[in-house]
């Protein structure tokens, strides 16, 4: 399976955790649900009626996410417009026109996206755009103000692999349900973190899968015995191992991996 690998980074990022509204916190990792929007922006797919989602899902877009930079989080105040009561009439509001909300941001975030699609035309268009550093709409890390840059890294031919019973080096975050019991080789100097990420959403933006995912907060790879993954060799000989977070896992595959 042809897989495009590219990096996306920015000075600031914010992917709001779904359970925090009045004090927004951010995920440490770019969730696949946000990656849909980024791909849609690069490809110029319409947001009207969530067409970008429909098209990307029809193309069976699969997304893997890796961390390149260590996770740094900073909180600072954002001045928001007070919209309570559905109206914004600054001078008539007793509590003031604006409200300051302390918001958590990612600082100097850099992620590596692994993307595969069944729709060859759309995939080729994506590869071409990424290689030429071309987008239809501006890409950002979570909020429109947090502009992002991106760069082509590699394009590889990924092969589906089953666990050999030994931990392997993984370049993406891995859902815990794919990791076999006691299958993580803990290495000194790494800060392991699990976070429940929204992995997939349907074309009316209802999240259809949430999962605990494991990664290293220092932005390095982790070694884990993963039930199944993809492996491919890059142009410079680097072997990439990755999982697509939003890939539908069939029942037979799930049975191979034991839930931790």
């Amino acid at each position: 399976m042809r897989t495009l690998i590219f990096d996306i980074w920015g000075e600031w990022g914010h992917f709001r955790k779904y359970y925090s509204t009045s004090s927004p916190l951010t995920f440490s990792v770019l969730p696949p649900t946000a990656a849909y929007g980024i791909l849609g922006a690069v490809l110029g797919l319409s947001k009207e009626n969530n067409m970008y989602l429909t098209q990307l899902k029809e193309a069976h877009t699969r997304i893997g996410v890796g961390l390149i930079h260590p996770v740094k989080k900073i909180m600072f105040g954002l001045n928001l417009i007070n919209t309570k009561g559905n109206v914004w009439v600054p001078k008539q509001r007793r509590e003031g026109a604006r409200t300051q909300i302390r918001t958590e941001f990612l600082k100097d975030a850099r992620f590596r996206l692994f993307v595969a699609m069944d729709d060859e035309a759309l995939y080729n268009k994506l590869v071409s755009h990424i290689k030429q550093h071309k987008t239809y709409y501006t890409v950002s890390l979570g909020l429109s103000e947090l502009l992002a840059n991106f760069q082509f890294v590699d394009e590889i031919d990924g092969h589906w692999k089953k666990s050999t019973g030994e931990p392997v080096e993984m370049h993406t975050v891995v859902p815990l349900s794919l990791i076999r019991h006691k299958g993580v080789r803990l290495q000194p100097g790494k800060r392991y973190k699990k976070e429940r990420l929204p992995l997939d959403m349907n074309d009316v933006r209802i999240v259809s899968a949430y999962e605990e995912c494991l990664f290293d907060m220092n932005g390095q790879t982790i070694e884990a015995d993963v039930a199944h993954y993809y492996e491919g060799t890059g142009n410079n000989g680097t072997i990439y191992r990755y999982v697509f977070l939003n890939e539908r896992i069939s029942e037979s595959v799930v049975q191979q991996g034991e839930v931790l």
Partner: protein
Amino acid sequence: MITAVQELGKWVLQQESKETLDVLIEPISETNYPHVFLVEIENDQWKVEMEECEEGESHKYLYRRGASNGPNFSPTTIVTDLAKTFDKKFMAWFDKVIKQKANFSEPDISYIQNIYNIIHKNRDDIYRTLETKLSETNGGCVLTLKINGHYLKEDPVFVSLFTRLVQEKDSEVSAKDQVCSVCGHRQDVVMAGSPAFKFYTNDKPGFISGEFDKELAWRNHPVCMDCNLCLQEGKRFLENRLKFRFYGLEYHLIPEFIFGEPDTRDEVTEILRSGNKYKTLHSQQQIENSLADEEDILDALQEADDDVLFHLLFLRKVQSAERILMVVEDVIPSRLRKIFEAKKQVEQRFPLQEGPSPYRRYHLGRIRTFFNKSDDNKRQSDLDKYFLEITSAVFRGQPLDIRFLTRFFMQEIRKHVAGTSEREGEGSDTDKIFHVVRDALMNVIFFDELKILETGEGNFVPSKHFEGIFELYGPHLDRPEKKALFLLGALTQMLLKKQQYERNSQPFLKQLKGLKMQEKDFHGLLPKVQDKLQQYNAFDAKKQLLAEEISDFFLRAGTGWKLSVDEMNFCFVSGMNLVHHIENILYGKREETTEGEEK
């Protein structure tokens, strides 16, 4: 984090074999509400009785708070103003249920209607009786019902209505057959968030992503009924056992288990369960027991495996909502070990001659000293933000810039210097300066031990006589100009001591320009100090040696130092503070120091 709370709640529910109803009922604090008034209805007769509230038994009253301006989920209510409470909470519950009679079964409604009729008929008498009894009691009160000798929890109709009303409220905005964001499973019904945490709200359209439609708010944070119960129980456990005070702030300590090994889980949760609520890092009341108290909960937790992580959730209540001030995520036990080790290293450099402990204790309160209020006249602390940032940097191992720190250190030190200059001759004020400077020094050394102190570009030039002191106390003195300032501070302090001894005042303090000296001021200060010492006949060979080394460092440093005014002055006061170490080297341990001990 939210999953960690859910898991904690699940664990508590299993351990205590609690039922759903027990989770829904809120306990009543016997300290705040020591009296319970019961309107007892028995065979069309009524009477008002009073009993003492026992928190452990309070679930029998079937209490759960409702909206602030509406009835609760049962007639049980806390009495604020009887006139309002009686009608708007107590009677209003019956009105609400009877109004919605179509939602409940016919026998239940006629049972409730019957009770309502009795109360309604005797409303004024009941009210007057309550009023009289209330006027005879002191302290908070609760108003509830007792039907035919049964408390509300023992009455199946009230229990059924209570459960129904709570569920109805929870599922105001809900959807069927959707995935729960907490457990990740597809569930029959999911609701829009859980009432456990008030930092999830959807009262403003901007909070509802995707068309701002409140009806669709469940899509943002779908929570199934089971997870909702676990979250509520988890939150209750956090409130009761894992909420700690921290220098005017509050935080919840949330454990999370990465791989969920049962042994670690049980061990850690048991520590948390048995831990004393107010013994932690440094509660304000127990400042001396801080950070390293043998019974300190973090102290106990540092021995755990790195399979467990801790999140420190700093919350502030704003009306009925909660605001997250800061989340310090992923603190691992090995990081705690490092912090405690650094603390030990700091303490060993500040021995005490008297007192139960051989060393001066170090705790994060010494950081709070500088990051509390920018102005003493302010009512509330306005530097919480910086204090939390620093706390977070300590726990996460993020760098701290010395220039940022010295700005606040000097602000506090200057306040005391100004006070002393105004009241010359008061020794205790000079001691206060020493305490503040020592706190600042302890902080600098603590950050250096944790390897999070950034001091800029260093230029190591060894000192001929005092390198030992620089190694122990001067992680920030990594350039010749900084060492020169430090030693000049020490020499100046010797002069001030001499003045204090000779004239019982320290007029030379005025030469220090309120510790806002610049590079040229320091260059000019050395000859002034030398001259003054000569006037007192105190510029002996040892002090000359010190002056020589200062000159040597000044010459090596050249001009145009890349230091902020605060940084320069902090190096200077560090030397003033540690003068006794310099004296010990120059004169041996004969000369007495004037450093006061902290009371």
